[in-house]
């Protein structure tokens, strides 16, 4: 959960998810100011969010999503106390996941 901050709130039968992920989202086109070399592309390619065993969102991302990416969406259903799981995987094979509880 270290790289993911999440907020999940249920209201009037709709759950709103807001997530902030710590990730450099390097495009591969930026040069290191000191060495002059290109910083290799390093960005999240996929984000998956689950509720009650169902996938509510799959986000396919390119490197043009901002550094320390933010994502928000809404789905019908969800009750306070339910668990939300969010996972990401990047182009270097790294991944992380986390959980939060709907408020």
């Amino acid at each position, binding site marked *: 959960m270290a790289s993911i*901050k999440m*907020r999940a709130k249920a209201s009037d039968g709709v759950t709103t998810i*807001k*997530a*902030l992920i*710590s990730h*450099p989202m390097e495009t591969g086109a930026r040069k290191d100011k000191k060495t002059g070399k290109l910083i290799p592309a390093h960005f999240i390619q996929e984000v998956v969010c689950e509720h009650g065993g169902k996938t509510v969102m799959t986000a396919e991302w390119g490197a043009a999503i*901002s*550094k*320390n990416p*933010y994502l*928000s969406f809404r789905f019908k259903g969800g009750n306070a106390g339910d668990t939300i799981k969010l996972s990401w995987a990047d182009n270097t094979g790294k991944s992380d996941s986390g959980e939060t509880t709907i408020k």
Partner: protein
Amino acid sequence: MKKLLTAILVMGLAGGTWILPAQASPQADLQKFRAYFYKRFPNTPKGDFINGVYSIDPASRAQWEEIEEFPPYELNIEKGKTMFQTPFKNGKTYASCFPNNGMGIAQLYPFFDADSGKVITLEGAINQCRAANGEKPLKWQKGPIADLSAYMHYTSRGNIINIVVPDDPRAQAIYERGKAHFYAKRGQLNMACADCHVYNAGNRIRADLLSPALGHVTHFPVYRSKWGGMGTLHRRYGGCNKQVRAKPLKPQGDEYVALEYFHTYMSNGLESNGPGARK
């Protein structure tokens, strides 16, 4: 140092005042400073100056509010909190170096320490704490020190900035040095901080709006979209000096410390609202 700061804290909370000297008068400077900006921006609520350009430009304010919905600096606050709560190798913690365990005190920095004759900034105090506990100092401009400062400032959100320039010629000299830096022209572009942020506050420089100097520092440390990360006030000072083609000075060196002393005093009475998010 801790005793002095505790005394200031108590004085501040009790609504006490230091006796100000007859000659150099930061109080008079502050009144004039405020009067100038209130007149220049009559539609800005006095407390809103802490939001910089967002207090005078609705279009960028809307974007800032979107970011504030879930600001990237929350990641830094969390990192800072973890660091703050992790004991040093000797078992002690940062809390032991600060009054009130370091919580809710950032709005009192920088302060003048009579014992050393120096002005202590929050970042300076953080590294002093590390040194006192056998730890290596952190770099001044970004990284862990910015995260720690972000956390400590977060616990001070809403507290009223209360910088004290006591009736001590050493403190006044530092204040005056900071004030001189602020109004002195520098760099190939031969511009003073005041040129942009006082005389041209609210005007455009190409596509940028110049922020008013009233309330300038309240939101530091700051997560800048440009930096893609968190940085301290002195990091920004260096950047600003570079932007007028002046040689940036040493972060936490005497000149920037003096500038911070003056600069923060000019925000006395405003709410501390760090850490902040800016472009």
